[in-house]
């Protein structure tokens, strides 16, 4: 029982660290704000979540201590990180950050509420 729990904890922590590494690598490698945001908002979320889950399980198995704050932390990250990704992408678009050259389509440029704000003219 304890061995199985240990293996699950090890896998969770290593997976979380690996996903965070991939997120960092994606932020360096991908070409523009929006694609970088993809990597940062998804991989970092699951990475941090699985590291926290591993820590929760570790202290539960080792000391029999169930720290509910870690669970709350997981829930808060799960709820707030997609919103943060959305807001960063939206702020970038509203301040006129260009898409990557190879982008094929941009429906938002013609959207009525974007024209009204007039943010594309300023850039």
């Amino acid at each position: 029982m304890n061995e199985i729990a240990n293996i699950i904890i090890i896998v969770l922590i290593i997976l979380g660290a690996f996903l965070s590494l991939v997120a960092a690598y994606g932020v360096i490698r991908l070409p523009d704000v929006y694609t970088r945001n993809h990597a940062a908002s998804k991989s970092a979320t699951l990475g941090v979540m699985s590291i926290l889950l591993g820590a929760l399980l570790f202290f539960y198995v080792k000391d029999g201590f169930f720290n509910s704050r870690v669970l709350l932390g997981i829930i808060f990250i799960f709820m707030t990180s997609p919103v943060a990704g959305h807001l960063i992408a939206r702020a970038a678009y509203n301040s006129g950050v260009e898409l990557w050259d190879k982008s094929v389509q941009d429906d938002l440029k013609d959207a009525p509420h974007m024209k009204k704000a007039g943010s594309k003219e300023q850039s």
Partner: protein
Amino acid sequence: MAFQILLNMFLGFMWMFLTTTYDPVAFLKGFLFGLLIIFVFRRFFQSRFYLLRVIAVINLLLIFIKELILANISVLKVVLKPKLDMKPGIFAFPTDLEKDWQITILANLITLTPGTLTISVSDDNKILYVHAMDMGEIQDEIDSIKNSFEKAIMEVSR
């Protein structure tokens, strides 16, 4: 829905007072019997039997977690691929959802879906503008996934 849960709690307390045992197990027993009573009398309520909605919420949560894992695998593939040959783009996604919280949940789900990220919501809440990592091949697939999300969210609020 909230009224049905409150009524169920009330029936649980009623059971505790009827049996004069005041512990969590007695409350739970009363709660389960109350659930049965509410199920029998479900046609007298305005909304549907609330357990169905609880199941729909749990279903939505499971979809959330599944999509988060799938999204990570797809990001992993794109980032670690030797050549950057994806075609990003922004497309408009018309939605049928009306209430603010539904659109918030849909936008969050889209952000956590493989290869998509919500950028903007139009003023009349009719259209979501979504940035996709790879436009060409997954457009149809994305639409089908979104329809399943929309259905799951509708199921919660029905």
